[in-house]
């Protein structure tokens, strides 16, 4: 709808860019065969999928969830527990459990959403954190999760040189899936209703939007790719522990990635995760100090809040389209792939201080 004629050419350009990006992602592990690099790439892809999925719920509805690690951990534990209980042998066929783990995360999301979505704003954020810690506590204390000793997951005996590649391509598949969900949801009836809820939930209800159903559907849907990512994570690491599968840092990372790239946009969380997760992994390898990235994250978080309150993608595309408009004196085109529609009211500062949504 917000298309002006000049963008038609831009659309082809975008399709071309998308195809090129896809091609680069597909050949990446064939060109960069160093296992350290492909290992970083796997983690990065898992976070790209998770941040995109988080954005499907929190970015579109304005309800900030800090409990999505619940879905990540559920996926990871489902994978590990099933593999252990049924004595499944390692191999490509174990990837069949990945969608199952995603569905398990959705099953958890239903009661979670029914409870948490009765509340709004700060209360919602706090409830999601509380539910998350309940799950972490369960993982520490239940017999089936083997408490703090964690669970070993069978490791495939693939060649060390190409060991990471199957994980890479499965993770890439999850990223494509999550992005497709985000893209098509954005254009759907439900997507429009979610955006209306973000703007003014009560007004939306007065126009016949079934806000409860819409929010729960988005919440459950966003759990799916996160649960799948958790399963791949468990398989890739070969062992899981409660404090890493259910990690509060997961939520902070995902939120920071989405904010950094541009909350509510389709490309923003992808870019944010691509930059932040690969950097973090790189630093971890480089300085062999696993906690250094926390300091960097903290600094970056403040920098984003102060300098790029709308995220990289909206700021940059706005700048470009304004420059283009100045040159051609045509009205600046708005583009739903990179713009959160109109002027955002939901800046990170507003979210953090509770003034939005």
């Amino acid at each position: 709808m917000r298309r002006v004629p000049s963008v038609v050419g831009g659309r082809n350009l975008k399709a071309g860019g998308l195809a090129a990006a896809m091609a680069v992602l597909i050949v990446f592990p064939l060109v960069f065969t160093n296992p350290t690099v492909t290992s970083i790439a796997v983690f990065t892809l898992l976070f790209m999928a998770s941040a995109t999925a988080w954005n499907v719920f929190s970015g579109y509805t304005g309800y900030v969830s800090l409990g999505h690690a619940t879905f990540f951990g559920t996926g990871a534990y489902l994978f590990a527990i099933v593999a252990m209980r049924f004595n499944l042998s390692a191999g490509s066929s174990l990837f069949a459990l990945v969608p199952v783990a995603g569905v398990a995360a959705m099953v958890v999301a239903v009661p979670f959403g029914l409870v948490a979505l009765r509340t709004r704003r700060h209360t919602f954020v706090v409830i999601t954190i509380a539910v998350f810690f309940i799950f972490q506590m369960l993982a520490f204390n239940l017999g089936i999760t083997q408490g703090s000793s964690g669970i070993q997951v069978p490791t495939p005996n693939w060649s060390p040189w190409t060991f990471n590649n199957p994980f890479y391509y499965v993770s890439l598949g999850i990223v494509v899936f999550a992005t497709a969900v985000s893209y098509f949801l954005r254009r759907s009836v439900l997507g429009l209703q979610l955006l209306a809820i973000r703007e003014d939930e009560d007004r939306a209800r007065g126009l016949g939007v079934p806000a409860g159903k819409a929010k729960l559907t988005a919440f459950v849907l966003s759990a799916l790719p996160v649960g799948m990512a958790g399963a791949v994570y468990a398989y890739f690491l070969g062992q899981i522990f409660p404090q890493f599968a259910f990690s509060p840092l997961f939520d902070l990372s995902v939120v920071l990635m989405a904010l950094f790239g541009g909350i509510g946009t389709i490309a923003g969380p992808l870019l944010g995760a691509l930059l932040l997760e690969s950097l973090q992994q790189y630093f971890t390898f480089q300085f062999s100090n696993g906690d250094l990235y926390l300091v960097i994250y903290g600094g970056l978080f403040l920098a984003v809040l102060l300098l790029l309150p709308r995220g990289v993608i909206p700021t940059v595309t706005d700048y470009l389209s304004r420059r283009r408009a100045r040159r051609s004196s045509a009205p600046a085109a708005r583009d739903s792939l990179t713009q959160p529609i109109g002027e955002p009211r939901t800046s990170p500062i507003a979210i953090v201080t509770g003034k939005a949504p």
Partner: protein
Amino acid sequence: MTVILEARGVSKRFGGIHALDGCDIEVAQGTISGLIGPNGSGKTTLFNVITGYERVREGEIRLDGRAITNMTPEAVFRLGIGRTFQLTRVFGRLSVMDNMLVASQHDASWARRAFRKAGSHGERAKALELLEFVDIARLANEPAATLSYGQRKLLEFAYVLMADPEFLLLDEPAGGINPSLINTLAERIRALNKEGRTFLVVEHNMEFVMGLCHNVTVMHHGRTLVSGDPETVRRDPRVLDAYLGGVGEDEEADGADGAGAPGAPVSDES
């Protein structure tokens, strides 16, 4: 005249304040009814109760004889009651067209429609037609946040119409908009009324209310004080005492035009 909306003995308390205190009101089908009264007399609260934004423990609301008390706002809207707010509430970051489309999604089962593309060809055409009707179609692709206050009022009016409500509640439609726009608005309301839609209008602009409405109900202290045609209400000493004060004398009575005899559903003070 059949009664389309009926409220009986509706009471609503906020702490110790009786916002509604046994309020009774009837609205006849096919009329434009006015609801006036001093600030704090319970007009907006009554709107909130009718449209499901406030729940009540006492009293009953009926639409076409069917009880709708304490239904959710979305259910009330689907039954054909559209409502605008005193302070306009449009979806600022959505385009004007998307604002319209949000309201168009009331029909068919939600689960079956949720994953389809938003805005079918027919829905967009209808939205544009309604935007033409209120004269803001040229702004269809602008974010609603860029609209002026008056334009937002018109947008709110238009998107409520997307669902073809048979009954519209307008909360101060003329508040804060310029005089020429007020006349346009009155014309639009009359035109829709001719199509058979019923209106209940809360408004402080007496000229607007007296010129437009077939029937006026006055609220005071959370209950209806008097109800009747504009002329009767305007001359009623109780109304003058309670509220109108000096207004009234210097105003021309335009008389209600439009189709249908002015309904005379009179609900007396309780």
